C-alpha cells in the first residue's frame, strides 16, 4: 500500500510542480498591474519560466523517456532499450542496471545459445572420433560391395557430423554453411527420395565464399522446414534459399512450400521469437520452434536489434524465414567476442 502511494506521489509530482509554476506566474502577472516594481516582477517571471523549462527538459523528459524504456522492456520488447537509456538518475540506479546487464546480457546468453545449437544439432552426446571411424568403415564396406548409394550417404553423414561437432562458435563462409545444408538434404533424400528438393538462388555466387555468417545458423531452419513443413506434405516439396546482397547487409530467405502454420501456431512462435531471455532453453525440446528461437537469439545478441529473423507462414501455403544479417568479411566478427 505504501509503495503504491509513493508511486502515485512520484508520478504526480510534476503535475504539482506545473500547477505551482502556473500559479506563481499568475500571481506575478497580477502584481504587474498593481505594483510599480515591474522590473523586479519581470525578472521573477523570467526566473520562474526558466526554472519550469529546466524542470521539463532536465527532469520531466528524461523521467518520461526512462519510463518509456522500462515500459518497452515490461511489454516484452528488446532488453537493449534499458541499457541504451542515457538518463541515469542516481549512482545506485546506474549500478543496478550494470548488475542487471551483467546477469541478463550477452555472455551468459551467448554461451547458452551456443550450447543449445550444439544440442539441437546433435540431440545426443556422441563421441565424434568413434562416429567418424564407424561411418568411414560403413562407407568402405559399401564401396567394396558396390552399394554406391550407401557409400554416398555415409560420406555425407560423416561430413554433416564433422561440421556440426567442431567449433560451433566459429564464423564460417556462407558457402560452408550451404555445403552443410546440401549434406543434410542429401541425407534426407536417402530417406525421402525425390520428395525433397533444394534450390539456391543467388545473384552473385562469388559473395558466398567472401562473406561470413555464424556457424549452424541456416541448417536448423532448413531442418525445421523439412521436419515441420515437408514431411507432413503429400507429394514433393521444395525448399528455396534466396540471397539478396546489399552494400552492408545480406538478406537470406528460406522458403518451403510445405503445410505451413495456422494463425495461432504462428502467433505463438512469434511470441517466442520476441522474448529475449534464456527461459526458452528450459522448454521441452520436442516442441517446435526452439531452433528458430535459438537462431534468432544468436543473431540478436551477436549483431544487435537492427538485424534478426522474421517468419511468415500460412496454412497450406508454406513458410518463409527471412534472415537479415550484416555482411562480415572476416571470420572474426569485431563487434563481439563470439
Amino acid at each position, binding site marked *: 500500500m505504501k509503495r503504491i502511494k509513493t508511486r502515485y506521489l512520484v508520478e504526480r509530482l510534476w503535475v504539482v510542480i506545473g500547477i505551482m509554476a502556473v500559479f506563481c506566474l499568475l500571481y506575478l502577472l497580477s502584481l504587474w498591474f498593481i505594483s510599480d516594481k515591474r522590473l523586479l516582477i519581470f525578472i521573477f517571471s523570467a526566473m520562474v519560466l526558466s526554472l519550469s523549462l529546466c524542470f521539463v527538459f532536465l527532469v520531466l523528459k528524461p523521467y518520461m523517456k526512462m519510463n518509456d524504456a522500462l515500459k518497452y522492456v515490461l511489454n516484452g520488447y528488446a532488453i537493449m532499450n534499458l541499457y541504451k537509456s542515457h538518463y541515469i538518475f542516481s549512482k545506485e540506479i546506474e549500478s543496478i542496471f550494470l548488475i542487471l546487464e551483467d546477469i541478463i546480457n550477452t555472455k551468459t546468453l551467448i554461451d547458452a545459445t551456443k550450447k543449445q545449437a550444439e544440442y539441437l544439432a546433435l540431440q545426443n552426446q556422441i563421441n565424434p572420433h568413434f562416429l567418424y571411424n564407424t561411418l568411414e568403415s560403413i562407407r568402405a564396406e559399401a564401396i567394396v560391395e558396390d552399394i554406391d548409394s550407401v557409400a554416398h550417404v555415409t560420406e555425407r553423414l560423416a561430413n554433416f557430423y564433422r561440421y556440426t561437432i567442431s567449433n560451433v562458435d566459429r564464423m564460417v563462409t556462407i558457402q560452408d554453411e550451404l555445403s552443410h545444408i546440401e549434406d543434410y538434404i542429401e541425407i534426407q533424400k536417402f530417406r525421402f527420395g525425390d520428395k525433397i528438393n533444394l534450390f539456391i538462388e543467388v545473384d552473385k555466387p562469388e559473395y558466398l565464399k567472401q562473406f561470413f555468417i555464424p556457424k549452424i545458423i541456416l541448417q536448423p531452419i532448413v531442418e525445421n522446414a523439412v521436419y515441420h513443413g515437408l514431411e507432413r506434405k503429400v507429394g514433393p516439396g521444395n525448399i528455396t534459399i534466396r540471397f539478396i546482397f546489399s552494400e*552492408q547487409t545480406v538478406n537470406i530467405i528460406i522458403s518451403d512450400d510445405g503445410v505451413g502454420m495456422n494463425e495461432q501456431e504462428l502467433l505463438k512462435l512469434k511470441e517466442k521469437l520476441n522474448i529475449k531471455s534464456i527461459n526458452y532453453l528450459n522448454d521441452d525440446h520436442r516442441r517446435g520452434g526452439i531452433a528458430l528461437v535459438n537462431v534468432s537469439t544468436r543473431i540478436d545478441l551477436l549483431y544487435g536489434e537492427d538485424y534478426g529473423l*522474421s517468419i511468415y507462414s500460412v496454412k497450406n*501455403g*508454406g513458410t518463409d524465414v527471412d534472415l537479415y544479417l550484416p555482411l562480415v568479411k572476416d571470420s572474426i566478427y569485431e563487434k563481439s567476442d563470439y
Partner: protein
Amino acid sequence: MKKVIINLNNVTYVHRGISYLNQLNLRIYESEVVGFIHIDHVGKRQLVEVLEQNVPIHYGKITIDDMVVNTHFNSNSGFNKSVYIIDSHNKFIQELTVIDNFFVLNNVKSDFVIHENKYEEILKTVLSDLAIDIKGNELVQDLSLGQQKILEIIKAVYYGAKFIVVLDISDFLSVEEMKEIHDIMDTFKVSGVSFGYFCNHHEEQFAISDRIFLVENGTIQKILYPDEYSDDKMLNYSFDFQEMVKDFKTPVLNELIEIKNLSTEGLSELSLSVRKGECVTILNKSNKSFDALLGIFSGQDKNYSGSIKINNVDLEAARNDISFVPFNPIDNFLFFDFSIHDNLMLEINKKYPSKLLNRKVREKVKEKVSSIFGKRDLNQDLFNLDVYTLYKIVYSKILVFNPEVVVLVQPFSNANMYLRQDIITLIQRLLDSGITVIILAVSLSDAKYLSNRIIYVDNLEL
C-alpha cells in the same frame, strides 16, 4: 552491390488502440519495384503514411537512404523528402503551366527569380531524354491524367526522390496510361529509383513488380518472388472468385438496351445492345471514352448524338429505369447523417416521391433487405459502420429501387480481397433479381468473373 533504400525494422504502428502495422520488417533495395497486396484494409494507408511522414510509431526503427528518420523514441512528424506518393489526388495546380508546377512549386530548390527560358531548356532536356512530348508552357489542365502523373514522377525524381509509392493507379488511369506509367517506372528503375506499387490485383502486380509483399492485418504474410508468380500460389491468400460465380448462368432474354451510333466528345459512333439480366463490362482503354460514357449514363452530358433506348424508350424518358452507382460510392452515394433505412428509402423516393413516409413501404423495404443486413438495427446512422456494411447499403439501395439496369463505375476500385468478395456477391444478387448490370471500367480486374460480355472501347470506337 545493391543499396538498401528503405529499412523498416520491427515497426509497430498503433492508433487509438488499434494496431495497424504489426512488427513489420521489410527492406526495399535500390532499382526495384516492390509490390504490396493488402488482403484486408488494415494498415495500407498507415504504411504509406509511415513511409511518407515520420509519424509517431509505437515501436521500431525506420531508415531511409542510410539515415534513421523515425524511431519509437523520436518521431519528428516531418516529411521524408526521399519518398513521394503518386495517387489519385492532383498535386499540380491545373491553371498553371507545366514549368510553373515543375520548377516554381517545389519545396526542395527555390530561386528568387523565375528564369522561364532556363527552366524550359531544362525541362526540354529532361523530357526529350525520356521521349515524352509535353511542352513547358502548356497548362496542366490541358494534359491527360496519365501525362500529369508521369510529370509528377519525373518531378519527384528530378528533386531527389529515391522511393516512389504508386498507389492504386489502375483505379483512375486507363490501360494505355498505365502502360506509359509502367514504362517510365522501368526507365527510372534502371537509374536507381525504387517504387512501391500498391494494388490489390495480383495480375497487375505480376506484370510490374520484382517482389510482392502480401499483407494482412498489418503483418506480412508472404513475400512472392517472380518464380512464384502464379494464380495457384495466390489461391492460398485470396479467394477463388471464379468458383464463387460458377453457378451463375447467362440469361437468354430479350434485348433491353439498344445503343445506336452514340457520339460525343471522346466517343465515336458506338453501337451495342444489352439483353435483360445480362452483365456487360465496358472496358475503356482511354480515359476520354470512359468520361464520355460516364457523362451520358449519369445524365450530366445530354449533348450526344445517336440514341440510347431502354425497353424501346429513350434514355432521358426512362431515367427511372436506370440507376447509377458512382466511383467511390461510399463518399459519393451515401448520406452518413441519415440512417441505413433512410438511405435505402432515398433511392425509392426518386421513383415514388409520395411514398417516402409510407409505413407499409418502409416495412416492405425492411423485409426485402433483411437477408442482407440480418438483425442489424436499420435506424442507426452510417458513421460507425465498417466498409463492408457501407457497400451492402450501396447495393441494397439499388436492390430496393429495382431498376431495369444499373451502371456501376469501377466497382472494385480500392477494394481489398474480402471486400471484392462481398462486392461480387452483391452484384450477383442484383443479377439474380433480374437487374441488368453495366460495369464501366478502365481495368478489367474482377469484373471478368461476372461479365457475360466484355466490350473494349479503344480510340473512341468499339
